């Protein structure tokens, strides 16, 4: 039972990590929290799902479509809600509010396009069970874990080794200095927003596979979880997002298994309030 729950927690948690990385990347370069993140990637994932159910597209195409649509929505966000606010001297919280507005628009668009109801994922992918001695694992869980872990490694490598990754880190460190050093910060920001949203798209697909269903309101819920992970891990810390996503996943699964399932959604925010009390900069955050 314990080990089984741990595996479930890991699976759920790894998707939270992917979501939170999206928040943290954008916070890193822009210093803002993108409140539309959750809605953006659930929209993308729903497009993928509709392609499977309505147009009989193969899974791979649907997956790709989900990621691309999420990325495009990220681009639209950048050009409508973020960039116009960078030009002038706007109040500190303006971008938070404009992303909240964008989130509402995306959520309403989902309701109008896809309806408010839950849509089943008709893929029987990975429903077979594997017996690993102490635990039995669904194939889908293995896929989710594998994809998440591989993506995180790729991202880690990309951020630390490639030219673009270095430009992103430089911009995160100091926007002005980076632009003096000849880094095209606008390009960096666009790239970051696109990558963050695309990662979200992947997370959305994996979650769809895990729960065999997608609902428009999941954007809000999962977005909240990503936010919780962001604060837990320390705003701007990629390592923090990775580790704390897993921690949240495990905490949730155990609170359901050994506690009261109806409080599952409160776990994330309970942890936030706790961490803000004892270590406001987050587990992996630098003290400011």
């Amino acid at each position: 039972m314990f080990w089984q729950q741990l595996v479930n927690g890991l699976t759920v948690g790894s998707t939270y990590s992917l979501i939170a990385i999206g928040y943290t990347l954008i916070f890193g370069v822009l210093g803002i929290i993108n409140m539309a993140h959750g809605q953006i990637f659930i929209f993308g994932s729903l497009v993928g799902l509709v392609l499977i159910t309505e147009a009989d597209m193969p899974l791979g195409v649907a997956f790709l479509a989900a990621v691309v649509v999420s990325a495009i929505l990220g681009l639209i966000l950048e050009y409508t809600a973020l960039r116009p606010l960078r030009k002038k001297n706007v109040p500190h919280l303006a971008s938070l509010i404009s992303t909240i507005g964008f989130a509402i628009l995306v959520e309403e668009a989902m309701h109008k396009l896809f309806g408010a109801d839950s849509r089943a994922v008709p893929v029987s992918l990975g429903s077979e069970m594997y017996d690993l001695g102490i635990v039995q694992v669904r194939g889908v869980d293995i896929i989710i874990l594998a994809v998440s872990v591989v993506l995180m490694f790729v991202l880690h490598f990309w951020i630390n080794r490639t030219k673009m990754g270095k430009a992103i880190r430089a911009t995160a460190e100091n926007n002005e200095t980076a632009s003096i050093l000849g880094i095209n910060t606008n390009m960096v920001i666009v790239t970051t927003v696109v990558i963050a949203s695309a990662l979200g798209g992947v997370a959305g697909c994996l979650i769809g596979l895990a729960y065999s269903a997608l609902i428009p309101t999941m954007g809000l819920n999962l977005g909240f979880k990503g936010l919780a992970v962001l604060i837990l891990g320390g705003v701007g810390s990629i390592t923090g997002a990775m580790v704390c996503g897993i921690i949240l996943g495990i905490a949730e699964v155990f609170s359901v298994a050994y506690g009261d399932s109806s409080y599952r959604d409160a776990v994330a925010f309970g942890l936030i309030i706790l961490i803000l009390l004892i270590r406001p900069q987050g587990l992996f955050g630098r003290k400011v």
Partner: protein
Amino acid sequence: MDLFNPYNLQVITFIVLNGILAISIYITLATGQLSLGHAGFMSIGAYVASILTKQADVPLIFALLLGGLIAGVIALLIGAPTLKLHGLYLAIATLGFGEVVRVIFLNMEITNGALGITGLKSIGSTLYDWLKVTGLTGDSFGLSVLQMKAVLTLLFLLLLFGLVLFLTLRLHRSRIGRAFEAIKADETAAKAMGLPVAYYKMLAFIIGAVLAGFCGGLFAHITTTITPDDFNYHKVVEILSFAVIGGSEIVWGPLFGAFILTTLPEVLRVLAEYKMIMYGAIMVLVMAFRPHGLIGTDTFAKLFDRRRKQAARQAEEGM
């Protein structure tokens, strides 16, 4: 349009209620704090007041006041650690608070979970009962009972709104109001001027919460039914939009926002279905084009200025 149509009266009542809510978010924002927990405080006030009137037969007005008070006490408790947090953190922490409160109400027995509390005695009925004691009924004014109740509710709300606005304006023009403004403009400079910044931020946060809680109680006893979902994220967005569209520099901004945003979907029926889209679009557009909101401290000054210039020009022409 029939003015005494109970439905129209209720719409106006909601405009007034949202006006009080707008003041509550304005006061918190007046110190530069973005709280996304107002729906949470509203729900606390709503549930406390409803449980008191329904289960304990507490008189309405005391129940409403207690609802606001308890919301204020909770604000004090969560404010102590969170108000040290800066901008974004406070926003997320208060958003989290609102969600935790909602989940708790969804699961408590006394709040009746997702079904919520129904069958509350409305403000209109309570006031009508009082009126009957004096011997007056709807007939005395040529109105039906339903109309009379709606009229009484509206009058009650208008009275409260007037009182709250009056006190807010008083506060604004006092030592406290100046302290709020100064802190919003520049915390470091405010400290250098001898202002206990933490104390004033806490004060503004608590006043905002008390008012939100009070509005929650009013809301519950106007609709007579509440569920946890009445106070979800969309409510947060709605309250925030008041201040966003109107601006939070002066109290007239959020009031204007509340008026416009509550009236538009009623007047333009088409908009009702797209209410949330309207909120979303407004937030994005206003932030992009006028991030301080539509009404600022200079709005009235400019108006007066123009008038003064006009007067001056006329005087010149006269000569």
